[in-house]
């Protein structure tokens, strides 16, 4: 059986890239990252490793962008189609639900790669002024961004399949992202060592500070994001399938 993934993906990319809203999202994204990079240069005090560790790991604006943007990109993926009725057309076509979900997920990831790509030019700029960033650190930092974005995109997609109101989807997605970020960080307050260990193992912040922005590739961390993404995509597919059961 031929896969319907390429045309579905193309359809998603068209809807993402040909929307004026996408470029407003891009503009604000670049503005925030530009400010974040400026702050990182100040915080790093000239040291490139520290600058990059802040810009791509421990900076406040970095986390604001990383937690909010997947929500903005995914909130309308299914909810809007459901509201406008185009989802029914897609689902009655000879395509599998899994392919629909995967196409939406991949489309959102490609679009977010398009958002992050210009930030690589910041590296070109500091190279121009004589700095030599560590390629290993850069690679793992962007890999970390891709991993976290992947998980949060899959989560956003799931919430978008649950409702036909994109604002509700956005709120659910944002609450999930903020809790995923903040709960592990507040675990030490409870003073339970086992809980601290679990929190450290699933903490996005810890993954960045301990691995990604330090130049370390951790198979455990990567598997966490890959598995998390897979689980959320499977549940999203089931959520879409559930429409047939009603």
């Amino acid at each position, binding site marked *: 059986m031929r896969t319907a993934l390429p045309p579905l993906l193309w359809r998603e990319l068209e809807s993402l890239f040909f929307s004026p809203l996408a470029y407003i999202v891009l503009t604000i994204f670049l*503005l925030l990252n530009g400010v974040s990079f400026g702050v990182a240069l100040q915080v790093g005090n000239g040291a*490139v490793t520290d600058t990059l560790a802040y810009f791509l790991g421990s900076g406040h604006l970095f986390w604001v962008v990383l937690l909010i943007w997947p929500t903005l990109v995914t909130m309308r993926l299914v909810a809007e189609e459901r509201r406008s009725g185009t989802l029914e057309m897609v689902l009655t076509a000879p395509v599998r639900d899994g392919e629909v979900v995967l196409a939406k997920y991949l489309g959102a990831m490609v679009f977010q790669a398009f958002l992050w790509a210009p930030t690589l030019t910041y590296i070109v700029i500091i190279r121009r002024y004589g700095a030599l960033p560590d390629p290993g650190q850069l690679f793992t930092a962007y890999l970390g961004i891709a991993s976290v974005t992947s998980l949060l995109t899959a989560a956003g997609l799931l919430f978008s399949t649950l409702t036909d109101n994109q604002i509700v989807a956005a709120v659910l997605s944002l609450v999930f992202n903020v809790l995923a970020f903040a709960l592990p960080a507040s675990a030490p307050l409870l003073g339970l060592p086992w809980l601290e260990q679990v929190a450290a193992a699933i903490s996005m912040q810890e993954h960045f500070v301990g691995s990604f922005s330090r130049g*370390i590739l951790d*198979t455990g961390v990567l598997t966490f994001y890959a*598995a998390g993404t897979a689980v959320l995509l499977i549940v999203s597919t089931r959520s879409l399938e559930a429409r047939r059961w009603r």
Partner: protein
Amino acid sequence: MAMKGGFTRGRRALEMVEGLGTTLALLGLLVALLYAVTRPAVRVRIDLTEGATYELGEQTLQVLGALEEPITFVSLMQPATDALAKATGLADAQVAAARYVNALMHEYVLASGGRARLEVLRPDRHPEQIRALVDQLHLTRLNLVLVRGPTRTVLVFLDEMVTIDPGDEDLQAELVDLRAEAPLTSALLSVRAEVPPRVGFLIGKGGPQIDDFGEFGVGLFAESLRGQGLDISTFDLFERAEVPPELDVVVVLGPTQPLGSAAATALLDFHADGGALLLGLDPEQPEAEDGSLEGLLAQLGLVRSKGILATDVGLGVGFARGLVPVRTFAPHEITAPIRRQRLFARFPLAGAIGRHPSAAADVVLEPIALSEADVWADRPVGEQGFGDFTFSEDDSELRGARWLGVVVEADEGGRVVVFGSSRFLGNQYLGSGGGQANSDLGIHTVNWLANRSDAIAPRVRSIYESKVELYEAETHEVFVYTVLLLPLGGLLLGLAVWFVRRR
């Protein structure tokens, strides 16, 4: 119709159960996979940075793997906050050093499989806990790591784990090298051991003292050895004719008084019984008429030169010419980390060590530290024993590489290392006044003498640090590009897409 509806409902229910079942099975599989790969035995961490800063050596992994009791690393870092430290960049360098040390310990914890844990105590957040530790352990300064085992605690100071060039008015302070793995692993070995190796410093014969933290003492060296988990003490040979038998290593540094035949005999007996000796001898000290020190050296197969090694390469004059750089370290367990990192040492007012003409055939001498070839042995002038630090063109002074550190290997007896200087381990030369390798050479030597080769093996990390210094105009350029031009480009792209779509 009723039958058809019932059939469809049944099929839908079947699909639902199948869907739920598949989802649950997949979820179970993923959770199992996640659990499996986060197990320390399966989990792999690969350091992709240029200097592989956080990659643990094989020896460290073995030590961590063999841990039977729980170990806690307690980080007590307090970077300087005064205005001068901030102005010279020392505060930033210390912050970076502390971050490196904490990150490295994090790797230890991950690699330990739950047997080690890390506690980071900050003076601003945990003042009470820190005060309690300071009282309990009689700490005189912070910027250290406590490695705590079930029964023992070992201190590792920040300056043993990194080298910070303090800078000056013109040059900013900076981290020069990262070498925390060796002392941390050594500390792990120490807290694990029931009885730490005992090192005794001979006193009562003059020379630098281990409780002297001034210019001429060796307090910092002794403190570093304590930090390595070694049991440091002093002993004299006035009332007793033998070295305390519980000692594993005896250190004799720069005796200024005659050793005496009884003391020399005691040291030789200790060596013959398998005890290890570290001798740091300064060439200008005149030997007593009984020749006890020369006799001791001769028994070990060695002879020392009275001439002070000097170099006229560089801008130094007078005594400054007696500060000889040592860049050649022969392959040996002691020198392996120093060679790997291409560090250098500085030996002040040192003398050459050589093979005694009557040394026994089974005595093998391994020179581990050698001077440069431009060095000459300056002839002593007058009673002080110092020369004029000027090379004489006549035949009496010859240029050539000299042995400054020698390992003595013999069929019988304990390990022996002899250096042609005691001052290179002095407080003045362990910091910025000496070379980067002075401290390591001393510590690695004692660890080797105490049979703790695994405390030497972990390799030293090189720094991969690039700096970007922006002038005001350049900062402005960066701002214009990142905050104005790039976002504006995004907006223009959007307008272009909108325009094309509209047409």
